[in-house]
């Protein structure tokens, strides 16, 4: 069994290279689709062999790389990473299939998509901070090009804004990683970038960054947190996201929202939660995270209400939904944490549908401005059907995966953060508000004759969305396959926090 993870990563990397070299569009997209499906098959094989009753790393493989500074190529999966690897392997083939009609520089387009797959899988599987950081940065580059080559009118602005924001955050994170590294080096006298060793060494870190102002522990914690919440993104570091989404091509948006944002959440579970209980001012840190989460939920919702561009609205809804991840993580109750993890998985699926809908509408009607649309259901019945289901899922309709996640987060966060939960609940009405308002104005009502004759989405587009809809429904009715993986790890993470708040349910 050993080697499955690196096989998966290498195949997607090789596929990306072959796609770059492909001569024709036909070859490029075929290679991309086949590669991503092979990767999906491997991911499914891992998933089937995955034991969800234990919290330790499985499928671990380790290769020495730079021994002098302690870097090893170490990969492994547990209940935190597995669902996201699965999600990445679901999203990428569907994105390739959805973008089947791409004509502009097809070989590079599909190649970059596969490179994204390589990057995110690396992030979700690597157990070495150095390698983790490399993959974390690799992810940025294809997305930068996807936006700046295939983007909309303000693509340069959006691409550079995306890059600067996330890169600055990564650098801050890198500093924190180095602080952890040298701390561990000082304690054990052995150079190692092993993630768990470094996180464990955090417990015995001492000293001050600025004496009397902030201790080194807190500084490292905040540095890591900053790296992750910018990626998520959480208010107030979110403004790159709407711009990036508005300008990005549909496939780019789907990957950005469904996978790249999840890296931030993954960081919370993988890095932040294990060290949170040992931070010097944990009470403040928890409150900080809870505030960030709730403000993101509410702020994202209200901003979504104000948007005229359908895609921008969906982008803000992502901010709002990712707020549940931060809130659930901050609550430090096992079920709220697994709810937050489930929200990551579920939001990845749902947001794919939403951005694909925006793409189809843009392609067909030539505009995404809600006021310029109207009544398109008349000519786009198939799109309307899947889009409506996607919107209902996004507004948290029970029976869809989003509800399970939000319900778990809200219910269990109430144990430790009741005030924040009540505030978050207010958001739900308005969430329904903007979704329905957009549907009513853009899709229903009388047909806006100015749009001319529009056509329904292509079959491959509708099919990709329909598969996502089915998955959303499936995971809404039967969350167990994915949720069970998360539960053990969530309990493991929260075990440290017992006594922290006096509650452990």
């Amino acid at each position, binding site marked *: 069994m050993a080697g499955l993870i690196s096989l998966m990563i290498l195949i997607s990397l090789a596929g990306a290279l072959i796609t770059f070299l492909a001569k024709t569009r036909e070859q490029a997209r075929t290679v991309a689709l086949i590669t991503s499906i092979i990767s999906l098959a491997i991911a499914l094989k891992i998933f089937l062999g995955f034991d969800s009753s234990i919290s330790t790393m499985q499928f671990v493989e380790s290769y020495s790389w730079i021994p002098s500074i302690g870097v090893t190529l170490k990969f492994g999966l547990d209940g935190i990473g597995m669902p996201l690897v699965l999600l990445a392997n679901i999203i990428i083939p569907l994105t390739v299939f959805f973008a089947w009609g791409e004509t502009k520089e097809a070989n590079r387009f599909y190649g970059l998509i596969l490179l994204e797959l390589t990057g995110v899988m690396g992030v979700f599987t690597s157990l070495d901070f150095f390698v983790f950081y490399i993959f974390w940065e690799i992810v940025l580059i294809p997305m930068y090009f996807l936006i700046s080559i295939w983007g909309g009118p303000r693509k340069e602005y959006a691409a550079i804004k995306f890059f600067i924001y996330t890169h600055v955050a990564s650098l801050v994170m890198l500093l924190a990683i180095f602080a952890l590294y040298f701390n561990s080096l000082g304690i054990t006298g052995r150079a190692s970038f092993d993630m768990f060793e470094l996180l464990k060494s955090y417990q015995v870190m001492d000293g001050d960054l600025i004496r009397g102002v902030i201790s080194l522990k807190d500084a490292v914690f905040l540095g890591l947190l900053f790296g992750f919440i910018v990626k998520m993104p959480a208010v107030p570091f979110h*403004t790159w996201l709407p711009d990036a989404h508005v300008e990005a091509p549909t496939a780019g948006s789907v990957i950005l929202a469904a996978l790249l944002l999840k890296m931030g959440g993954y960081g919370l579970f993988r890095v932040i939660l294990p060290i949170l209980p040992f931070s010097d001012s944990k009470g403040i840190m928890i409150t900080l995270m809870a505030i960030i989460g709730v403000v993101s939920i509410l702020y994202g919702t209200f901003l979504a209400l104000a948007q005229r561009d359908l895609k921008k609205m969906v982008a803000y809804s992502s901010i709002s939904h990712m707020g549940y991840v931060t809130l659930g993580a901050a609550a430090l109750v096992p079920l709220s944490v697994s709810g937050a993890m489930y929200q990551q998985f579920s939001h990845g699926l749902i947001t794919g549908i939403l951005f694909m809908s925006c793409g189809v509408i843009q392609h067909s009607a030539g505009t995404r401005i809600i006021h310029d649309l109207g009544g398109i259901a008349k000519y786009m019945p198939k799109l309307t059907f899947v889009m409506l289901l996607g919107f209902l899922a996004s507004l948290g*309709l029970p029976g869809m995966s989003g509800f399970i996640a939000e319900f778990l987060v809200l219910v269990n966060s109430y144990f430790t953060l009741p005030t924040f939960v009540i505030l978050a609940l207010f958001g739900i009405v308005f969430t329904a508000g903007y979704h329905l308002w957009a549907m009513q104005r853009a899709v229903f009502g009388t047909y806006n004759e100015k749009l001319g004759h529009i056509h329904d989405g292509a079959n491959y587009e509708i099919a990709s969305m329909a598969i996502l809809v089915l998955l959303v429904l499936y995971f809404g009715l039967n969350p167990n396959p994915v949720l069970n993986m998360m*539960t053990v790890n969530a309990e493991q993470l929260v075990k440290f926090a017992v006594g922290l708040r006096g509650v452990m349910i």
Partner: protein
Amino acid sequence: MFSDFAALIVLLPVIAFVLTLFLGKKLPHGGAYLPIAAIAGSFIISAGIFLEIYPEGIVQQSIPWFSSGSSTMNMGILIDPLAIVMLLMVTFVSLLIHIYAVGYMSHDPAKSRYFAETSLFTAAMLSVILSDNILQFFISWEVVGVCSFLLIGFWYHKPSAAAAAKKAFLVTRIGDVLFLAGIVMLYVELARIIENPANAFEIGSGNFILQFKTMFEAIPLIDKTQLTYITLLFFGGAVGKSGQFPLHGWLPDAMEGPTTVSALIHAATMVTAGVYLVARTFPMFAATPDTISHGVPDALLVVAYIGGFTALFAATMGLVMNDIKRVLAYSTVSQLGYMMLALGTAGAVLGSKAVGISMFHLISHAFFKALLFLCAGSVIHAVGTNDIREMGGLFSKMKITAVTMFIAALSLAGIGIPFLNIGTAGFFSKDMIIEGAFEYGEVTGDMIPYAFAVIAALLTSIYIFRLWFMAFTGKPRSERHSHESPSVMTIPLMILAVLALFFGFSHTGFYGYVESNFELMGVDLGVHEGEPFHPSVIVILLPVIVGVVGFLIAYLIYNKRILDMSKIISSQNPLYKLLYNRYYEPKIGADLIGVKLTHDVAAQTGEFIDRKIIDGLVIDTIISSTIFKIGEVIRKMQTGVVQNYASITILGVALLLVLLRLEFGGI
């Protein structure tokens, strides 16, 4: 034997939904026979189960759904008396309305979508009724809401329909969020109780955390203040779904959907889910502390007042509406208020009898209100307009519709003969509610709910007979040639009319059966059963008297025309204006709160903060421009003279040497 197939009650319509959705277009009548067959199947199974378990059986089936740690959510079925009467009513009414819709929707090109959606609706509604836990209840409740949204917006190309659908969903969503908050608080309370070893509270084997059974057993252990919050939040959900004040505004607008939808969803079934919720969790309501009025649980007091006020409030608006369906919609709101009133007032003094009283009105209301809507649909089908001012003189043309509608009106107005116990369904059910409210007044000295109920009864009678006289008597006011509807539509009318007339006679058996519900569940209600109830003659007579008086008023004004209404209903009359504009509820709700406050103020403020403060001020003005200015200064060092660079390099080396010397003490 039927109980083994209880799950099929829900699954059959689900299967019909999927089949109709994908195959309906190719089948005759839009595939209408699929849902009809499925719902008939559900009805037969329900009836079979009823015969099996009557009088004191319960069906309970549960499977774990998803678990995390110590608490497990489940999916399950609970068929107790409360559920079975609802089941029978919903499957039966839904069946009749589906049959009627074959005729009513025959000309609509999208009828397969219609039948798919109503089929899904029926499945979800049945799932609400059958749920044995509050989470599944909530989930089904939301799916019901979505179906309502889809069906109100069935003719989505009409902007008014799309807007009404959105309004319905959003307003009920407010209630749903309250409901969800209640579930959240309840879950946390229950989990704490279970985890606390001091309580020695264990969930029986095969039971799960959010099951009604667990909830009821835990009532004595729940903190009383929390219990009040939880029940009030639940009631918030019921207020949204059942169109109670102040969340009533969506229901009249929901009449944009096809009339069959109004009959099925917005009269007979879905809107009663709120009442059903309160009835279902009645032991919790009854266990709340009595801090406001002595002997009356707080939650029930709120239920009584909101219900009573809504009954009256909605009836006043029913008086002036000209759209036939809107009159009926306000009537529905008002009658739902009666059901809540019954749960609140009778619940406080009579205990679980209140559930029987309320449910009896719910069922009889379902029959006569569905009948009223179907008659209205028949009229609209014939006349082609909803405006009762353009109808008139239809009696001779549509005899079956006219007669059945008259029966329904009698039932709604609660006409019957006291002491002989002869009367329409509404007579029995409404009488009991008003007498219950009187009893409540007697015990607590608070006669306000009773006053609400009596005045509302008078208004009910006036508006419904106004409607009937304006539509069926007098001179025809439109040119259109109207004719009676086809028999596929009139036969359901006649069946419902029979029920609206004679269902009332089942009342003694019904009360006893439904009352026993919570005993069968093993719940101690803890509300004292009042003294045997002996109301005075005037109390018994009053509801019928106001009904008859209302009939006479309507007869004199709208048939004999002793008063010229056009003078009163001028736009100058402030009272009329207030009523006709629905107390300015759409203006306050949608325009002020929805658009002005939420969109214009809150959302635009957010947009301002995002664009101008975060992106503009912080990023552009402060961070970006600071970095830019630093760059401006530093770039001056780039002189282009090689010697300068060399000097700086040498200085740097010298500095390094000095530092090395200081640090390590030697070169």
